[in-house]
């Protein structure tokens, strides 16, 4: 848990850290209202510069409307976690850069935080740790009551031995943060199931929507991406494209482009809606709202990352994370003391309670 809290801390500011440590090519300055580049041309430019040749995803940058990414892999079946991101200028369609991020500090922190470089088993292991974290929080609430029977809320006995002081800090910070840690802990657990949720959706709703295509061979020549995006935007009014999954990738069927669209409020911008475009005819096949289990995953993401309320919210997130580290640290200390001395924390406190009594009554 300590590892998760510590690696999570820099991830809250991953944009700022990357900006500080690595330079990136800036997209061209354009006046507001400049139309976006044709996506087919942008895609061709991206592939021309890349050693990898098969596009998997086309992704609009959430934070920078002037840039977008093309995620390219070796083949359509290659593992997308090895894909290379090519950054493109969304107005001119020109190549910006394609840095190798795998050596970056933020990337290492991310992998340690998400799966400890162990793939799905690593994720599920950390998910299990997250469940235990939530159980520990709840058991903390249960033992908070007897421990506070004789104390006011917020009691911090600053003049007492370290074990008492740290117990008070553990109790105080723990109970103040309890809702936040439960929410961040549990949404983190849900995020570890993302791969499974995606598979469930593929075999559930997506299979249903593409049932008539099951026995058809994949299209030999793909229609225009730009046209597919246009069809999708027209089919789902009021939403803007977030990313396109190419036919045959982990987020699509073998015969469709899927354009994932987002809304424009903090919640609806997370609730992506897929529009399936037949990659042979360019026509809309279907567009449905995601099932509840995918929606749950989508809502869990911002609640875990804390990236939905501007920089102030992220700073608060970081401070709360530091306090959680303090709760964990004092918790480990109290547990070690209890084991080593064979003396319960309660007794250590009781031994000093005679000294404490006058202050309590004054």
């Amino acid at each position, binding site marked *: 848990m300590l590892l998760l809290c510590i690696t999570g801390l820099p991830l809250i500011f991953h944009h700022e850290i990357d900006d500080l440590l690595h330079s990136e090519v800036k997209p061209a300055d354009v006046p507001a209202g400049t139309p976006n580049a044709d996506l087919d041309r942008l895609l061709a430019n991206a592939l021309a510069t890349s050693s990898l040749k098969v596009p998997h995803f086309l992704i609009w940058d959430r934070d920078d409307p002037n840039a977008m990414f093309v995620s390219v892999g070796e083949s359509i079946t290659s593992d997308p976690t090895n894909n290379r991101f090519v950054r493109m200028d969304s107005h001119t369609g020109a190549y910006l850069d394609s840095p190798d991020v795998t050596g970056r500090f933020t990337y290492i922190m991310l992998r340690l935080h998400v799966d400890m470089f162990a793939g799905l088993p690593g994720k599920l292991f950390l998910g299990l740790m997250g469940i235990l974290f939530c159980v520990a929080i709840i058991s903390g609430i249960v033992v908070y009551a007897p421990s506070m029977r004789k104390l006011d809320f917020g009691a911090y006995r600053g003049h007492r031995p370290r074990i008492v002081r740290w117990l008070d800090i553990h109790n105080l*910070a723990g109970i103040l943060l309890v809702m936040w840690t439960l929410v961040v802990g549990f949404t983190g657990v849900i995020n570890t199931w993302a791969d499974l949720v995606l598979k469930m959706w593929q075999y559930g709703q997506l299979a249903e929507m593409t049932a008539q295509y099951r026995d058809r061979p994949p299209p030999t020549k793909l229609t225009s991406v730009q046209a597919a995006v246009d069809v999708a935007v027209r089919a789902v009014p009021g939403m803007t494209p977030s990313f396109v999954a190419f036919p045959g990738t982990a987020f699509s069927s073998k015969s469709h482009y899927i354009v994932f669209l987002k809304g424009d*409020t903090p919640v609806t911008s997370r609730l992506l809606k897929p529009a399936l475009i037949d990659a042979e005819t360019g026509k809309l096949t279907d567009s449905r709202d995601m099932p509840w289990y995918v929606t749950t995953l989508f809502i869990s993401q911002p609640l875990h990352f804390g990236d939905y309320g501007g920089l102030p919210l992220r700073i608060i997130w970081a401070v709360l994370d530091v306090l959680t580290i303090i709760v964990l640290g004092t918790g480990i200390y109290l547990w070690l003391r209890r084991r080593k001395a064979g003396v319960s924390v309660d007794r250590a406190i009781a031994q000093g309670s005679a000294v404490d009594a006058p202050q309590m009554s004054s």
Partner: protein
Amino acid sequence: MLAVRNRRTLGQIFAAPIMVGALSIVGLLAALIGDGWWDAVSWLSLALPVLLYLFFVVRRKSVGPR
């Protein structure tokens, strides 16, 4: 056993934590619902536990050992 007279009930023990916890939930959801004022509500209600923590720890430290 210790004297029972200054024992607190569960209600007394958990009154403040429940208030703080409820405000945390408000804060977590507010920034999801909207921007602008909603964000401000979220910042204030989530900063509250941090401020309370600092208040209680600093208060007792300034009293110091007797």
